[in-house]
């Protein structure tokens, strides 16, 4: 039994992001699984709009950080400024103090600035000038990165990529969807006209509901078999870590919830597998790196259901 509020949310987003039902659903699953989302794609395919719409329909406040190569951690976290009237320093929170943070072109910034955000993602709190401040709840980072072969990028190291629960690609829309986009109203106005479907408290409840989706022993066997295959097969440089397996299960649970089920099926695992493994597994064959779906399909077809 699908939850009507989740269906409504998906419908709202799909009205604005046209022809991208699957990435939209994945990004929602990522949010329900309390994870951060990485979108790697070319500029102009709707990454920012997706982040904006998500924040809007979920009733969350939204900030955007445009990463540049001369960016400093204080630009993200905030800074203390001397207030002449009171004669004291006052902390001015940075853009990271927001429920949905869009970190645009994160790989344009230097590692120092990247790590300021990545630390906040992991700890869900910020320490600036000796004081620890909690970030809002829920806290959801959508980072976008340009394909790493582009000029002026600082690729994120594997350990930091691991902080993102899912990595998705939007890709070009198909011609029909693109035509509708071109002919339709201004997306920015459409976003502004959206009303929140749920409150942030309800979102926290839904996240808890996703955590409680049942993963049977047979399903856990399947996740283990997948991980074991990546660890032994020569196709990958290194296998999936236990943390990656946990991520896979978490997203699969959220995916099952979106599908209106209280138990995870192998189909859920297979559906979210490309997004979970694409930034975690590095194929030994470099040419295979480009087609994420094909790599995931090869993995799925190599591992029988236990």
């Amino acid at each position: 039994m699908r939850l009507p509020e989740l269906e409504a949310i998906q419908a709202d987003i799909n009205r604005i992001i046209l022809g991208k039902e699957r990435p939209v659903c994945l990004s929602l699953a990522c949010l329900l699984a309390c994870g951060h989302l990485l979108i790697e794609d070319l500029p102009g395919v709707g990454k920012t709009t997706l982040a904006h719409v998500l924040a809007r329909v979920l009733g969350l406040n939204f900030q955007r950080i445009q990463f540049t190569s001369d960016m400093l951690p204080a630009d993200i976290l905030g800074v203390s400024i001397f207030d002449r009237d009171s004669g004291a320093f006052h902390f001015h929170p940075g853009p990271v103090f927001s429920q949905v943070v869009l970190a645009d072109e994160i790989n344009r910034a230097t590692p120092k600035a990247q790590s300021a955000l990545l630390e906040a993602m992991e700890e869900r709190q910020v320490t600036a000038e000796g004081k620890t401040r909690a970030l809002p709840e829920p806290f959801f980072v959508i980072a976008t990165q340009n394909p790493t072969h582009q000029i002026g990028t600082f690729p994120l190291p594997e350990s930091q990529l691991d902080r993102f629960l899912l990595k998705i690609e939007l890709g070009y829309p198909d011609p029909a969807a693109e035509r509708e986009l071109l002919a339709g109203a201004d997306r920015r106005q459409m976003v502004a006209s959206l009303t929140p479907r749920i409150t942030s408290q309800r979102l926290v409840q839904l996240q808890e509901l996703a955590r409680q989706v049942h993963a049977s022993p047979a399903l856990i066997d399947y996740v283990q078999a997948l991980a074991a295959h990546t660890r032994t097969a020569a196709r990958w440089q290194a296998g999936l870590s236990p943390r990656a397996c946990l991520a896979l299960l978490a997203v699969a649970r959220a995916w099952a919830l979106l599908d209106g089920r209280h138990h995870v099926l192998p189909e859920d695992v297979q559906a979210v597998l490309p997004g979970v493994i694409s930034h975690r597994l590095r194929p030994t064959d470099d040419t295979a790196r480009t087609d994420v779906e094909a790599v995931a399909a090869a993995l799925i077809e190599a591992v029988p259901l236990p």
Partner: protein
Amino acid sequence: MARINRPVSRRQAWWLLATALAACLPLAPQVPPWLSVAAGMAFSWRAVLTWRQWRLPPRWLLVLLVIAGTAGVFLQYRTIVGRTPGIALLVVFLALKLLELRAARDAVATALLCYFLVLGQFLFTQTIPTALLACLTVLITTATLLAASDDRPQPQRQLRRAGLMLAQALPFMLLLFVLFPRVQGPLWGIPQDRFSAVSGLSDSMSPGSIAQLSQSDAIAFRVQFKGPLPPQSQLYWRGPVMPAFDGRSWRVAQTLGAYPEVPYTGLGAAVDYEVTLEPHGKFWLFALELPATLPPDSTLTNDYQPIARQVVRNRIRYAQRAWPEAIAGVNEAPSILRSALALPKDGNPRMRAIGAAWSAQYGTDGAAILAAAENLFSQQLLIYTLNPPLLGPDIVDEFLFDTKRGFCEHFAAAFVFALRAGGVPARVVAGYQGGEVNPVDGYLVVRQYDAHAWAEAWIAGRGWVRIDPTAISAPSRINSNFSAAVPAGEALPFLARGDLAWLKELRYRLDAVTNGWNQRVLGYNPQRQRDLLASLGLNEPDWRSMTAVLSVLCGGVMLGLTGWILRNRLRVDPALTAWRRFAVRLAKRGIAWQVWEGPLAFAERAARQAPAHAADIREIAALYARLRYGAAPQAADLTQLKTKIAAFNP
């Protein structure tokens, strides 16, 4: 090979140290004290080395220590072979092996030595606590052996695994115990000298010797009656017969003739029973008066006591028959009668005078003199007590006429002296009287405090007659039990006391368990094995048929265990079995289920290819998905799935 040469980690060293300690500690009372101390020092040394992570001692020092230890054992026992020297040597080796614990193979050798030492405990004692302790040590040793092949031993995991392995070995152990050809007697005739110092009746009796036994509640023997229990007053367990008197103590005859078979006949019904005799280091066997049969490997002396051919050093069991009423020795040999009249040259003048008077009055009328003696005893108002006063040289006179307080040996000795003084042949019989039935298993338990002495007089025409002079003064000693006859306030052994009922109950139960162990486990001898095999239809088995039976049964157990493990490992979800059947049916239609395909995804694909059955396919897939991946699979769903699949025919 690399594994076996891998260095021993610190954690493994601690494990081994603990295991070696567990294997050695129970042997501490058996090895000489200097060895216990030396081994303790070696253990402590190793513990310090492990703790501080210091280097192990050099090889030459260990060689010197081995030589010194072996020499020490040799000097102690004048040999290094045999049971105790062998065990002592093993302790030396184990303690020193710990000091050269470098590689995994040393750890394995240490663990194997520990197994040997556990086995060694059984050469000394075979009680239930020993067996339990040995089980525990074997468990720890096995866990250590497992840990030796593990880089990061986790005590809990290894212990659990060792327990599982031992549990799997259990059926084999039982089979081998029951069916492996048994050797006569305990293996290597051991344990034996453990019982050299146990208490029990001795071959002489002087004032105070039986009273000493009355403080012991150790078990003398257990009896199981085939029929109803005879009355308490008939339970006279005949032990050593003592005709010789030297003025102070009574002794068994120096030279004993033996009867080839029982020389008397019984009157009335016989009583059948089985005795399990605790080792007592003497030759005699106890039998209810008067024995009608003889235990195997024994003879009957000419004063009617069954004597074993060998000293009773192990617990033995024999079936017996007794005649409570019997006429024995009517035509007794003159030499025996002569020895039953002998008195020392002097001493006890008062009793001698009375005896002479009886002799003058009644002549050779033994029955009359017997009655006179009984009369004398009842007139003297003698007191039965655990703490009789010390007696001077004339023990009979002083007891009868001055102190008037005595224990059963005083009564028996004085009575026999009185009869002899009157010219009636008489002798002292020692043994046990009474016993207590353990309500838990129904065995009659005779303890050391049931030790007793009574008199036997020879009356012409009637033969030997039993008279218990104690019964004249303290009839309750014979009719109920020992504690009832003792005056209030005298110290009684714990089990003879009437109070503390719950403790007594506990003791009964413990005793029943010990008895069961003795009867069934330790008492499982070749005869019992033959009986058991005969009851299984294997008459007079030779080693070939025994081996065949053993192999077949062991193989059967092995197969059973393997099957059980495989079943557990390969247990297939019944829903999955049903689903595979469903997949086979669809495959016949050309719709093949891919092994990696999820049920709902497959159902969608199949429904597209076979639209006529779409509803069925979707329903089956949904049922299966819920059963296999759902939170609480319902049995009803499984039944439904099976019926649906059985009915499904694309």
